[in-house]
């Protein structure tokens, strides 16, 4: 399924979609990988990861079969 990026996270990474790096197996590791590759993400006041359309905690396991999304601070309404 891969990783979907939205809002300013999409702008920072320069893409709306990417594959899950092979060695990444949980949400916390994915966040660290994203911060390492796109340091500007660290300037966001928050960065949540959603797995299969629900907010996930750092310990949650992920695989390439999951729908993963990078959620910068939301601003609806």
């Amino acid at each position, binding site marked *: 399924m891969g990783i979907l990026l939205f809002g300013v996270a999409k702008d920072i990474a320069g893409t709306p979609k990417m594959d899950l790096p092979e060695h990444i197996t949980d949400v916390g590791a994915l966040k660290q990988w994203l911060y390492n590759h796109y340091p500007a993400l660290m300037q966001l006041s928050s960065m949540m990861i959603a797995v299969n359309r*629900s907010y996930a905690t750092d310990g949650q396991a992920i695989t390439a079969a999951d729908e993963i*999304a990078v959620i910068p601070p939301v601003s609806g*309404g």
Partner: protein
Amino acid sequence: MDVLISIKETITVQEALDFIQSPECGGEVIFTGTIRNHTKGRGVVKLFYECYEAMAISEMHKIADHVKAQWDIKKLAMLHATGDKYPGDIAVVIAVASAHRGIAFDACEYTIDTLKETVPIWKKEFFEDGRD
């Protein structure tokens, strides 16, 4: 509780009002969020709303589930617009109906406050001065 949840290009207050009409309700509370023509002193030309729609719908249902568990609300409509929006356009409508007004105000406030915190929708502002 009957629930109407919708995310689409154009939303209207009337469709929310029509949905919450009920002979058993005597209190209807409507919140509308519209596009303001300024942010922090800078003129706003337009906003663009981006949405992770599948998850946004799911999060809006979670809000509705909480409202249903917390208050005796009969009808709840939650509408959000997407795409380009200009000053005066409607971005969001929350409409709540219950037998009496008190809990309708409470549920409406909870719904819009939580929507702004948890529903994955993002606005991008375009300013008169052309800068980001």
